[in-house]
């Protein structure tokens, strides 16, 4: 299977660990991700906050590049995915033919065919790993853009974790906001939102959170030491990408190197579980 791949800017920088795990999983599953040549930034929150025209035009350029190639396009970043989908909707509303589908990476890899393939290739079931799935906002909301069937209570990541042999726990905060792009300008707001996510995850019995968005990962992973200091409580909650868990369960040899790039080191937990 071959798709156009729109990595987005973060995956060339702070989310290079996510990028590496995606390449690893694609290789394991025989998925060819052909990076969209000359793709540009989608404009993210900055564009839709200050410049609606740019917020429309930036993803449209990417969509046109993808349309020229003709393959479906997959985005691993929630905001990139959301902007590409919005672009596709805008084109369709103008009566232009949109011949390709825009995929969110988690949605793609939890299609039945991939779940079957993962089941077949499983070499190290993640037995005993208690996790909550954290989807964040923009892969699901607003459904008019994302076409999400169940935006308030998505379940595809839980389904994946169950296939991987882990124990996905139920909780009510799986689509609550982490504060997203406010991280730099108003870190105090992030701290409050994220601390509540930690507390709720712990109350659900989780040992880690699993994410499909590098912005969520950054906001939950990077400030954990700061939030712990402020709270007077040592949080130690690894924030794992779902792709890292697929690769781990399928026996990819490079998983420890990806995990070493997190600020909250997931290796002690996974070692204690006999998974590393």
């Amino acid at each position, binding site marked *: 299977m071959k798709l156009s791949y729109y990595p987005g800017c973060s995956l060339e920088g702070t989310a290079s660990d996510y990028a590496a795990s995606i390449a690893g999983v694609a290789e394991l599953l025989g998925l060819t991700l052909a990076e969209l040549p000359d793709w540009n930034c989608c404009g993210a929150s900055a564009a839709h906050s200050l410049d609606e025209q740019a917020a429309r035009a930036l993803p449209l350029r990417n969509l046109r590049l993808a349309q020229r190639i003709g393959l479906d396009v997959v985005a691993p970043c929630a905001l990139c995915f959301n902007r590409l989908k919005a672009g596709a909707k805008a084109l369709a509303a103008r009566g232009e033919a949109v011949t390709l589908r825009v995929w969110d990476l988690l949605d793609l890899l939890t299609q039945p065919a991939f779940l079957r393939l993962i089941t077949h290739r499983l070499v190290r079931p993640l037995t005993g790993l208690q996790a909550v799935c954290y989807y964040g906002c*923009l892969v699901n909301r607003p459904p008019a853009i994302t076409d999400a069937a169940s935006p308030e209570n998505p379940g595809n990541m839980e389904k994946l974790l169950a296939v991987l042999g882990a124990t996905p726990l139920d909780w009510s905060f799986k689509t609550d906001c982490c504060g997203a792009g406010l991280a730099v*300008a*108003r870190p105090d707001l992030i701290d409050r939102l994220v601390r509540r996510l930690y507390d709720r995850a712990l109350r659900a019995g989780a040992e880690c959170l699993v994410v499909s968005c590098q912005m969520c990962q950054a906001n939950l992973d990077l400030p954990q030491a700061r939030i712990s200091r402020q709270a007077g409580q040592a949080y130690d909650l690894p924030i794992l990408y779902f792709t890292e868990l697929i690769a781990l369960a399928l026996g990819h040899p490079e998983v420890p190197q990806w995990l070493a790039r997190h600020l909250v080191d997931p290796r002690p937990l996974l070692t204690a579980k006999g998974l590393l």
Partner: protein
Amino acid sequence: MPPSDFTEDLAAALATAGLAVDACYQCRKCSNGCPLVFAMDLPPDQVIRLALAGREADLLGCRTIWVCSSCETCTTRCPNGIDIAGVMDWLKEQAVARGLAVPEPEVRDFHRAFLSAVKWGGGRLSEPLVMALYALKGGRWLKKLRRSAAAGEVATALELLRRRRLRLAPPKRLTGAGEVAAILRRW
């Protein structure tokens, strides 16, 4: 007499932008689900109410629109299909386009720095560049250094650098860098 900042055209301008607000019946579902309402001066339902009342100046100067994280919960849940998060964006854009003072200049300046970084960086975002542009804006970095408030940020940056997650080399300059710069010409 209506207050002096009353603008009859506000709801009409929003409707023209595809953001009609006149179906609001004040159920407050938006405000009850908003994760950031604690940091707002107007809950989202009041933003919509004031838009209907034409209270443009109140809205363009409020804190709410800047601490909204665009999580889209309000837009998703509105029983009347009002794009509340879209209204927040429209108000932010108007406030900046008209050069008005805003109560959260940090948020505004970060967005500006982001768009400038994409424009000057050749079409993709360089994370160190956006941080540098943001820090330089209004001498923010210098002020922080004086209060030694920057220590945490520097520590995080060093941690990322140590883990090879901070890419200091500029991103690839796109063949279409000129197209992207034209789209972002205002920044």
